């Protein structure tokens, strides 16, 4: 276990390791056969994880940021740096919107297909959803522009260094530029570079450029596969090592032997 559970009795540590060991073996048995034991382990894991999330969201977000401050002082000015915004906007409005979402969601769950959800609730719940969507959209578009498109286009189109570059570097840079364009072309247009949308003289050039991009993407897929293999095998090796050869299993066996010998 970790230093974080030190306040529990020592037997809890070994019991916890045993629990985790058995759970892991059950899940690993999936590769032999998907039995009810495997599914029981999965369902147990999901139930515990769901509850952990609820506790986390409640204790780290909803209670300290929203409900406890509202209950303590409902109409206070926010204690944040911007003192001009009252608790109404910072806390009451999101609370109301959140409860509206819950009401609509619970009404939908209760009704389902047998009974249509209340239309007015569903309509009202559109507004908090619209807020969420709008924030995500705005931040997403701004981020894509500022964080990816502009820097990557700028880097891809840098030709200043080419003027003084040595021939190998020049060749490498031109190849990089060609592959970037070819990959973009292939992904956007696929195999349609030869169709009538494009002027006839341009078609062979575009087709060749997309061909280069396609090959580069295939090569990249192979490299990604290899790196993915490294990542997944590391997880598997680490897990098997921890289960059968790690320090914890040694400590556990030692504890078991002590228990056995101690009577």
């Amino acid at each position, binding site marked *: 276990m970790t230093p974080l559970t030190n306040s529990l009795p020592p037997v809890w540590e070994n019991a*916890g390791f045993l629990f985790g060991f058995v759970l892991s073996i059950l899940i690993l048995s999936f590769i032999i056969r998907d039995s009810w034991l495997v599914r029981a382990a999965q369902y147990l894991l999901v139930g515990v*994880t*769901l*509850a952990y999330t609820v506790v986390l969201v409640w*204790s780290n977000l*909803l209670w300290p940021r929203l409900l406890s401050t509202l209950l303590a002082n409902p109409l206070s000015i926010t204690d944040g740096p911007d003192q001009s915004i009252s608790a109404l906007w910072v806390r009451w409005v999101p609370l109301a919107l959140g409860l509206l*979402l819950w009401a609509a969601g619970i009404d939908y769950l209760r009704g389902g297909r047998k009974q249509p959800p209340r239309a007015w609730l569903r309509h009202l719940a559109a507004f908090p959803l619209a807020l969420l969507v709008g924030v995500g959209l705005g931040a997403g578009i701004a981020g894509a522009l500022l964080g990816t498109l502009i820097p990557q286009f700028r880097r891809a189109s840098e030709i200043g260094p080419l003027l003084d570059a040595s021939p190998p570097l020049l060749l490498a840079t031109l190849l990089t530029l060609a592959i*970037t364009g*070819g990959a973009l072309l292939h992904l956007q247009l696929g195999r349609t570079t030869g169709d009538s949308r494009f002027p006839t003289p341009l078609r062979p050039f575009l087709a060749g450029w997309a061909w280069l991009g396609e090959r580069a993407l295939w090569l990249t897929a192979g490299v990604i596969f290899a790196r993915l293999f490294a990542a997944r095998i590391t997880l*598997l090796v680490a897990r098997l090592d921890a289960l059968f050869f790690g320090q914890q299993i040694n400590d556990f066996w030692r504890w078991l032997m002590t228990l056995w010998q101690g009577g």
Partner: protein
Amino acid sequence: MLKTHDSITDTHRMFAQRSPWINRIALLIVALTAALILADRLGITPLTRPAANLLYGWALLLSAFTLLLGVASVLWIHLGRIQQGSAEWPLSLLLVVAFVLVLVAGLAIPGGVTSPLLEWTFDAIIAPGQATLFALTGFFIVAAAYRYLRLSRPGGVWILAGAILTLLVQTPLSQQALPVLFVGFADWLLLGPVMAAMRGALLGGALAALFAGIRLFTAPSK
């Protein structure tokens, strides 16, 4: 980009199931919110900063509410299975019982997820369970290699070439047997052609997300 795509599908779902006027008002809210956020992020005017921060704070709290709603919907499904005696209802019961036990322990004991009991739960159940579950993907990727890393597949030669080269270089035993030039070539491959192809993919994805977002406002309910 992922979030932008999620936002777009959420919006479509909203529009598909409501009256036109509600849709228009909702779309107006989406547009105004997105415009304000964009104006703030692009630095058009500093006056939008307090409003933008307020909206971010709302989004954070509303996400917490929607998370709990998601948990409730999963539980509802399993409670339904238990009530109807559907297939595997005992497993659903196990899920619900485990949920209730951990929830009560977490809410009743001070400290939330940092209480010793919840930390123990994390170490004994969540961490080993999740780690083992994801470790299974190691088996599946080797099985996938059997089916897909074949010369006869489209692009098979190129994919195998990239994969074999990288595999040999990244594995300690084989890397020691390779000439230095080979390893240097693998580095160059990663920093040159692979990087360039990924840049093309990144730009393509960003452009697609951008145009999808613009399309949302030009033709939301066609």
